């Protein structure tokens, strides 16, 4: 048994550690803001999408399948009803043409959303606080299925076996 003072300190430390853990679990996990720090040497560009699906802050930004940056945040612009996505891109990838396409893509069939960049042909490159003009929205599976059904339904039902 340690001395009274040591015991008090030990108990206090344990209780503090326990409550710190509880605080972490209750505040950081459900919808927490805790995110991985983006590299300090990066620049920031924005892209406006019609629909971002469930893209979340922290998702990767890739180019030709290689990660070049991160999604810093997703906002809604109530002026033109679009989603504004902030991207931080590593400083070393500073030769991305400014007419590149930003697409919302899905990893796997049911995986998480991420932003994929397709290089354009422009001679000028994206710079800090720049904006990507060409964007393609998330593919929403339900909408695609609906379109498919609509296409079938709109076909005239005048098969050769029509009776009347």
């Amino acid at each position, binding site marked *: 048994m340690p001395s009274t003072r040591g015991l008090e300190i030990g108990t206090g430390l*344990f209780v503090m550690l326990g409550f710190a853990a509880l605080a*972490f679990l209750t505040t950081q996990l459900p919808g927490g803001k805790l995110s991985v720090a983006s590299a300090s040497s990066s620049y920031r560009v924005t892209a406006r999408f019609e629909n971002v699906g469930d893209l979340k802050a922290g998702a990767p930004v890739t180019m030709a399948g290689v990660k070049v940056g991160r999604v810093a945040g997703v906002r809604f612009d109530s002026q033109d009803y679009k989603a504004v996505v902030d991207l931080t891109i590593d400083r070393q990838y500073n030769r991305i043409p400014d007419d590149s396409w930003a697409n919302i893509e899905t990893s*796997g069939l049911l995986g998480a959303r991420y932003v994929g960049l397709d290089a354009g042909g422009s001679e000028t490159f994206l710079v800090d606080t720049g904006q990507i003009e060409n964007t393609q929205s998330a593919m929403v599976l339900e909408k695609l299925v609906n379109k498919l059904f609509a296409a079938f339904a709109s076909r005239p039902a005048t098969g050769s076996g029509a009776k009347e």
Partner: protein
Amino acid sequence: MTDTLSKLGKVALFLGQVLRASAPALLRPRLIAQQVYNCGARSLVIIMLCGLFVGMVLGLQGYDLLARFGSESALGVAATLGLLKELGPVVTALLFAGRAGTSLTSEIGLMRATDQLTAMQMMAVDPLRRVIAPRFIGGIIAMPLLAAVFNVIGIFGAQLVGVTLMGVDQGTFWSQMQGAVGLRDVSEGIVKSIAFGVICSLLAVYEGYHTEPTAAGVGLATTRTVVASSVMTLIVDYMLTAAFLKG
């Protein structure tokens, strides 16, 4: 059958006695703090070590399973929910029964075997109030804190394996987790760990208090504590899980 019933009745009656003795025991926080230190602080290292490895295994197994469906991005969600709702509280309770429960039982059992408890009664000191209640309360306080530490370490263990070893994107790991885990999932785990704390502490002090006052008796009582605590923890875990899913 009647044996089981009478044991159950004895434990329930003992719980009533301990609860009655707990109110006055709360007036002596120093005794309780000492037990929080005994049950909690001294179990911390083993809890952290086990939490780390349970989390790492979850990262490995979860990745292997999810990769078959091409949804490795859900690894953070899977590992965190598994830890918060099941593995955290249950594994902590099992370790608690083995680490703290046994020492409680053998300590009290030895007091019984060496007539210390009887001596206290002779001096008009209620052993329930002086010895049993502080240990019971201390265990209940320590258990949820230990489970919380276990969960946090486990989540970082899963991240260590999933992100560093298996190459899941770190941002995806955390953002998917934060989007999917609700406050309810966290509170379910906390409620579970409090319930397990009551079970493990109660059984440990019960077995110690009712030890047959011999050397062999103390050993038997310690064994019974571990077995009964582990089985009861798992049974109650199923019940609580079913209740939470329904509610």
